């Protein structure tokens, strides 16, 4: 029924504690895990990147879990879990990014410096930094470079849009995939799926790039981090897609994190049953709330 609907992965792994005791070699491929290397205790290191990674994204997604008991190694089968659909705003056309500035702002708590005292005419202390906390996702964006609070508000909102694009994933139906218009607009003109009505290619410095970036990350996520697979859907070469990804630092880092987390999961799931055997009843319990997939290597 759900077909090949890809789910965002929630890394609220009960096996977080597991990480600390994994041999270092198993996760050198993942930059995320370097900080936990060598931690032997079963308590979470304070700034656990895995936990953070899980907390920062996909809070509104509901899906049911499967406890992993067996692995399929090379058949290429993908085991998917059901994807409950919410009627949250991010499921609608454009998601959070489709909201107007006013609407998006209303979902935020704005912190300016907590002024002590009555403010207004009493005060001449220009703490113009603005922090926006997006309540539905918990994402925080801030701006302090400008001398006017008004401009910092606008900057923070733009930064929030970029962060929402980078961190909030929406499911994509690969069976019936058609790249949305905002994604087409950021593709190079030679893309075979991009029509001429899309206009000139929107580049990384353009504010509209953010929406395209979100759709691109959704796709890359859905194809499990495979740049070559994503490129096929977009009618461009793997090289061209790589160049597009490299044209924006934030996009590049988000794609790398995505691919690294995929490697991590592969590492974890090959070891998990082993540790079950080793630790027996003392193995960390808790369901593994995530999607199981075998690793298909990138071409």
């Amino acid at each position: 029924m759900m077909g090949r609907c890809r789910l965002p992965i929630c890394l609220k792994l009960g096996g977080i504690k597991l990480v600390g005791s994994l041999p270092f070699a198993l996760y050198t491929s993942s930059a995320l895990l370097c900080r936990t290397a060598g931690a032997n205790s079963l308590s979470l290191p304070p700034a656990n990147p895995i936990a953070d990674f899980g907390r920062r994204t996909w809070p509104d997604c509901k899906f049911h879990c499967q406890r992993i008991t067996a692995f399929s190694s090379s058949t290429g089968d993908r085991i998917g879990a059901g994807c409950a659909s919410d009627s949250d705003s991010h499921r609608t056309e454009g998601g959070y990014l489709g909201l107007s500035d006013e609407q998006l702002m209303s979902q935020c708590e704005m912190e300016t410096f907590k002024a002590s005292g009555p403010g207004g005419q009493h005060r001449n202390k220009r703490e113009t930094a603005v922090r926006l906390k997006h309540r539905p996702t918990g994402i925080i964006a801030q701006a302090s470079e400008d001398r006017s609070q008004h401009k910092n508000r606008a900057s923070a909102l733009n930064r929030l849009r970029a962060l929402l694009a980078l961190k909030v994933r929406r499911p994509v139906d690969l069976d019936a995939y058609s790249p949305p218009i905002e994604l087409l607009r950021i593709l190079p003109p030679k893309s075979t799926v991009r029509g001429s009505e899309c206009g000139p290619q929107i580049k990384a410095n353009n504010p509209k790039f953010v929406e395209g970036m979100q759709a691109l990350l959704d796709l890359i996520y859905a194809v499990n981090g495979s740049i070559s697979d994503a490129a096929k859907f977009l009618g461009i070469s793997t090289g061209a897609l790589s160049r597009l990804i490299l044209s924006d630092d934030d996009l590049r880092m988000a794609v790398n994190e995505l691919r690294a987390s995929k490697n991590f999961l592969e590492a974890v799931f090959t070891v998990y049953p082993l540790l079950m055997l080793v630790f027996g009843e003392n193995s960390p319990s808790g369901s593994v709330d995530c999607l199981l997939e075998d690793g298909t290597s990138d071409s």
Partner: protein
Amino acid sequence: MMKARCLLRAPYSSSPLVSSTLHRFCKPGNKFASQNHTLAFSSSVSSSSVSPISSSPSPLSSHHKPQVPLFLRPPIYSATLSDLTNFFNWGKTLASSVGSSFEQIDNGPDATLLLRELKWFLDDAVEDSSLILHLGTPQNERFLSMEVRLRAGLDQIYQLWKQRIEERRPLQYIVGCEHWRDLVLSVEEGVLIPRPETEKIVDLVEDVVGKCGVLREGLWVDLGTGSGALAVGIARVLGKSGKLIATDLSPVAVAVARYNVERYGLQGSIEVRQGSWFDPLMDLEGELAGMVSNPPYIPSKDISGLQAEVGKHEPGLALDGGVEGMDHLIYLCMRTSTMLKPGGFFAFETNGEKQCNLLAHYLENAAGSNFRDVSIVSDFAGILRFVTGYRK
């Protein structure tokens, strides 16, 4: 104690206009005359007896030459990058030495804030502000001997920063401008530095004219315009057909407001008139589509405890609101219903929740039920700050 600084600063302080204006403030029997007679400007609320001297265009306001903000001055000075680095290091040390002492004395800025201000100061003083990024970092000899163009002499730059720390002279007066909303407004001694809270009034007006096109086409008024901040902000929101009159008692403010209006190319939309509150607007009674004001609202007793940047340098005329701080606000409200046309909108900034409540109560009860939709709106810091409404 508190001098009417704006008037005394003017070169024509012995003129009959000025002394009679001062005289008017202290007029006995004035309902709102302050108990404290040294506060010369607290009783400008009288609408009776003394004929408004300043309703006719005053020739004096054109005598004050507004100062050019630092960032607009030509970069005719220079210094080596090495010299500039020395200044920066000295300035940083001076700022750091303040620590949190200002904060403890009168809730003034701390060292972190002062350091940020130092960078803003250099942003405006140095022609190529990208060089400022290099000031803290080690550089080679050749780079350090490079000449850097400045908008003020290095001596003056030292002196100005010294004033900042030793005299608590506001940065905005030192650089001659304030970044406010999406504007950069010229300010100088004698003119209130526009506050970030006041930015919200422009948003409120934008909402109102968005909902009601008729108000967008009408005549708006900014009472006590100071630097002209609200006038310029609102005129930009009203658009091409916008028409606005800005008034201020202070001739210095009028000159500076006119200068800012010109800088934003709005001479066709904004007229600046000198005078007390509605006195320069008597020809427009009952015709105003909208009225905004950020009148002085600080209770007199609080003036001496203010942060030194404010209390010792900004014009008391723009701050002191009388015993409860409400003298001017009440006066404005008394006249609002006759000045506005039916359906006209008003928005006033206040000292906070207490004044908002008092004012809203007054508007709904004492003012003869002339108003509808009286609302209290909070500022971006969450403090109830503005009272708005419409004339019925």
